[in-house]
Each structure stands twice: as structure tokens, then as C-alpha cells.
């Protein structure tokens, strides 16, 4: 019994029907080495307050119902050992719903935004099905492996509600929906890949609004790495010729312009090239401020012209770009 550790659960409480604001209640309990976060949620309900509410079902990490946050860390309650989190955060654990602003009651949140975005990417195989097939619809191991890990998504919302871009931009599809879009787009039985790539190429909602923070990779309890799939969707837009020339795609491709000339990114050129000369005016104020303090260099007497040093052996970079480039805008 010496294994028990005293832990305080600072727990988010809120009932949208009766409470004006959420509040926190502290529950202190002795926690054993085999207890999961879900066990602690059960103990709050069973030993302290029967009105405490949370979602749970399978207890095996597969239904995705019990995703919450502990000290800000996305946590599938039935999968995570409580004392491991105590080791990381100390003996006060802050128990909160996945998204505080969507709380309905305690840990239970309104996930309708998640499901709307899930539905928006056509999360199913689109195919003309032959009612009298003469052979099986076979896939090779390689074709299957292309989407195997992305298919493991349990729609728990851990990545979705850890995504800072989504917190700021309601239109953004988010990592879970984009992972699903990838999963069906690379399925060889599917015929709606290009359509999905167009949906996910949309400015404001698609892949180009990902901020590249890797919160989703960290949050996923199934180790899917959603941002890696977002990267693959970026690539596929160029591979399949879906990418249109816009500020985001030029920003990605435009890195090569500077690299061919000097080996480095050309910071001024990437802004001008991505935005276009008309869009550039937005940045003039910042450019002046940067010039004033010497962040934009004047080696040649004229700003932006020949202001960047060249790397040694630049010809190697030029040659490698020439022989290794696989995509075009």
C-alpha cells in the first residue's frame, strides 16, 4: 500500500444550463500506481459528487469518447496512467474538458464543429460500385500501407482541440479532418481524391492555414501524426496539379528562387513574390521599420539589391535543384 500517492484534482466544473461561469473544485485522493485518469474521473463521481459528468464507453482506447485535457495536455483518459502525469506535472492535476469554450457540462463538450468538419472532407470511399462484380477489389500491401496509420483515427478530437489555428480561425478544417481527407484521397478504390484536394487547398480553411506547431502530432493517442498527413496533402496538390498560384503556394515554391541565386532564402523576395507587387504594399510599414534598425541590409547602397551573401559551393545547390526537383507550380 506504500505505493499510494496523495493527488489533488483541480477539476473544471460547469453546467451550461445553470451556471453563468465555470469554476474549479478540488478533490484530493490517494492514487495507486495502476490507476488511469479515467479511474480518477470515476472516483470523483462515485466518491465525491454524483453530478460530475464526463463521457466514457469502451475503456480500451478505441471509442474516443473520454478525451480530456490534463494540465493542458490532450489525454485519452482510459489510456493514460495517472501517476505518470503526476511525475510530469506535480501532485496537483488540472482536469479540464478538451475545449473549455465548448463545455456543456463538466468534461462533456459540444463536438458539433468537429463532426461538421469531418463530414466536409467526404470521409468515405467514393466509387461507382458494380452491382455484379466479377472479381474482388484488391489492393497491394504498399497501397494499403499508404493510409494504414491515418485509418487508425478514433475521432476523439484530441488533435482538433489542441490545434491553435482552430482556436483562432473557426473556418480551418483542423488536423483530424485533414488526416481523414488524406486517408481517403490516397485510397486506390476512391475516385474523389482531386475533389478532396480542392477542398483542402481552399485558403482560410485548408492545409495552408496550418501553423506548423506540431501540437496535433503530440496530442494524438493513436500516434497518427496528423501534421505529416497535412504535409502529404500539400505535396499532393503539386503532384496532381491541383495547386493554383496564390500567396501560399508561391510562398512554398518561392524558396527556390533565393536558393538558386545565393543558397539562402531571400527574405525580401519571398514576400514580394508571394504577395505580388500589389499585395506588397501591406508590408511597406514593416519594411521601413526593419530598414531603420538595420534588419534589411544596404551592402550595395540600395536596399534588397545584392544584399545577401552567397554560400560556398553554390553551384552544388543549383545542380541539386536541377536534378532533384520533382514538383512544379
Amino acid at each position, binding site marked *: 500500500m506504500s505505493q499510494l500517492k496523495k493527488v489533488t484534482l483541480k477539476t473544471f466544473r460547469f453546467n451550461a444550463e445553470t451556471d453563468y461561469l465555470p469554476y474549479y473544485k478540488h478533490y484530493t485522493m490517494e492514487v495507486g500506481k495502476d490507476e488511469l485518469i479515467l479511474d480518477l474521473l470515476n472516483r470523483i463521481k462515485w466518491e465525491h459528487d454524483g453530478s460530475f459528468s464526463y463521457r466514457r464507453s469502451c475503456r480500451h482506447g478505441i471509442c474516443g469518447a473520454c478525451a480530456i485535457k490534463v494540465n493542458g495536455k490532450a489525454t485519452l483518459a482510459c489510456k493514460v496512467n495517472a501517476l505518470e502525469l503526476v511525475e510530469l506535472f506535480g501532485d496537483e492535476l488540472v482536469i479540464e474538458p478538451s475545449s473549455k469554450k465548448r463545455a456543456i457540462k463538466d468534461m462533456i463538450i459540444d463536438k458539433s464543429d468537429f463532426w461538421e468538419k469531418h463530414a466536409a472532407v467526404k470521409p468515405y470511399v467514393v466509387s461507382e460500385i458494380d452491382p455484379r462484380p466479377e472479381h474482388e477489389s484488391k489492393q497491394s500491401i504498399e497501397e494499403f500501407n499508404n493510409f494504414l496509420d491515418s485509418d487508425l483515427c478514433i475521432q476523439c478530437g484530441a488533435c482538433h482541440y489542441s490545434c491553435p489555428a482552430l482556436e*483562432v480561425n473557426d473556418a480551418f478544417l483542423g488536423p483530424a479532418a485533414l488526416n481523414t481527407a488524406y486517408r481517403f484521397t490516397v485510397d486506390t478504390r476512391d475516385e474523389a481524391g482531386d475533389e478532396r484536394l480542392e477542398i483542402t487547398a481552399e485558403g482560410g480553411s485548408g492545409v495552408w492555414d*496550418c501553423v*506548423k506547431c506540431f501540437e496535433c502530432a503530440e496530442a494524438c493517442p493513436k500516434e497518427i501524426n496528423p501534421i505529416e498527413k497535412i504535409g502529404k496533402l500539400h505535396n499532393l496538390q503539386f503532384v496532381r496539379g491541383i495547386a493554383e498560384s496564390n500567396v501560399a503556394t508561391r510562398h512554398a515554391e518561392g524558396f527556390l528562387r533565393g536558393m538558386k541565386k545565393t543558397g539562402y532564402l531571400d527574405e525580401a523576395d519571398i514576400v514580394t513574390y508571394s504577395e505580388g507587387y500589389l499585395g506588397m504594399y501591406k508590408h511597406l510599414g514593416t519594411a521601413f521599420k526593419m530598414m531603420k534598425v*538595420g534588419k534589411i541590409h544596404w551592402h550595395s547602397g540600395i536596399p534588397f539589391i545584392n544584399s545577401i551573401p552567397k554560400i560556398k*559551393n553554390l*553551384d*552544388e545547390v543549383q545542380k541539386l*535543384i536541377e536534378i532533384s526537383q520533382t514538383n512544379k507550380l
Partner: protein
Amino acid sequence: MSEQLHYALFTGCTAKQSTPELLSSTLAVADKLGIKITILEEASCCGASHLQDFDEFLAHVLNARNICYAEKLGLTMITICNTCQLNSAMTKHALDHDPELKAKVNEKLAEVGLEYKGTSEIKHFLYTLIDEYGLDKIKDKVEVPLSHLNIAPFYGCHNIRPSELHEEANGRENPYNPTSLDNLISALEGNPVNYESKNKCCGFHVELQANHTSEVLAGNALLDAVDNNADLMVTPCPLCHLKMDTYQDSIGKVMGRDVELPVLHMPQMVALALGCTEKEIGLNFHVQKAKHLYTQAS
């Protein structure tokens, strides 16, 4: 006596362009601590995760080329930008775990007489200072204790996430509760500010295509630091620095509240405490005025 530390420095693009103060303060700190630095003048841009969106294979080839030059010297490659660290480490991880990809990349590299072997480690300067030089030794060298300053550590995403990629290079820093920068601030006798946003995203990477998102993310972090009494913010990433230093006027407009907070590069803070010269520290290159820190520190 232990052997002198010697690293191959991958400067990245910003240190050669808009943040010269990052390079000068890095070299000054290394000099003060007796760390030998060889600059990889052959190294090109890492692609900053944007070239990777366009052409992943090409980005691997170019990053592998950079790493080749550190391998030739037989040295650990150190970075002074989180995004350089991420993209170089991603290429290293991909090539070291996928022999087929490694062979394809080496086929291209052979055309310019290079071969990627996988013999050099890649580490951010922050972690070489802590893990290899040592905080105790840094503490002994402090000439200007930063005890008058409340310093908000801002870790930057690409040094701490994805944790699986970085765990060898960053002392198993936990992305939900990082401590390295806090410990460095304490070693310099500064007061680390505890605030929620320290491990959050600054929004730099969508500055052009999703400007509002970018401004709000940076604004949230800056104001969180201000509300927790920070006198300045410090970051190991020059892209976080550029976003949060250069755009405070426009961020203030979006947030509906003025923001005035100096944002220092990690080596600038160390250089300040080690008594390096103002020219080496280069606070004059900041858009948000920071030169008062020279007197405030001492």
C-alpha cells in the same frame, strides 16, 4: 582538463540577413565560454518547412547536403534556429530510418561529390550549452547577473515538438512542461516568468497566408508574458523573434491593446549576462526598443 568543445555551426538564413545580432551574439557567447565554432559556409537554406510542402524529396536532398559538410568535419552540427533544427533533424531521421530514401538521396548527392552517412548529431545551441557545456559552468562565468529582470522564456514549437524526433537532441524536454530555458535564465540569475503561453505557437509560418491567425497567436503569447510581469521575452528561435519583435504595432491593433516587450534571442541574453560588448549583443537591431536592457541589466 576536458577536451575543448567544437561544433559546426549551421547559421540558417535569418542570422545571415535580418537578425545579424543572432550570429554575433552566438559567436560572442561561444568565445567567452571557450567553445570552438566552425561556420558551415557551404550550408544552404533548410526549406523552413515551406519548401518541404512544395517538394519533400528536394528538401531532403538539400538538407542532407548541409549535414554532409558537418560530417566531413567530424563534428556535431549545431543550429541557432528551431526551424533549421526541425528540418535538418527530420531529414536525418528520414534518411537514417529509410535505407531506400537514403540511397536515392545519395544518388543525387554523388553528382556533386558528396555522400550522406549519418555520422553527425544535430543539436540546437541551447541544448549544447545546457547538456554539454553545463549550467553550473555558465553560472560561474556570469559577470552581469540578470537579477533585476523578469524574463519570459518562449520555447518555440520546433525545438520541442514532435517530442519523439527531438528527444535525443533536447535532453528529453517535455513539450507540455519544458524547463531548459527556465533553467538557463535561473543560471544567469534572472527571474523566469511562469506563463501558460511559453510552449505555444508564435504564428510566424502563416504570417503571409493567414495573417489574422498569425497576429492573434503572437499577440496572445506576448500579452500573456506582459500580464505575468515580464520585462522581456527570450527565445531560441529567430523566427519567433521576427514575428514577435517586428510586428508588435500591428499585433497591438489586432489585439486592441498596445504591446511593448523586447524579444531577445537566447544567445543575446547569455551574452548580456557574460558581459559581452554592446556591439556583439546587438540590441540596436531590434524593432521593439531593447537598448535600455544594457543599463537595466547592470
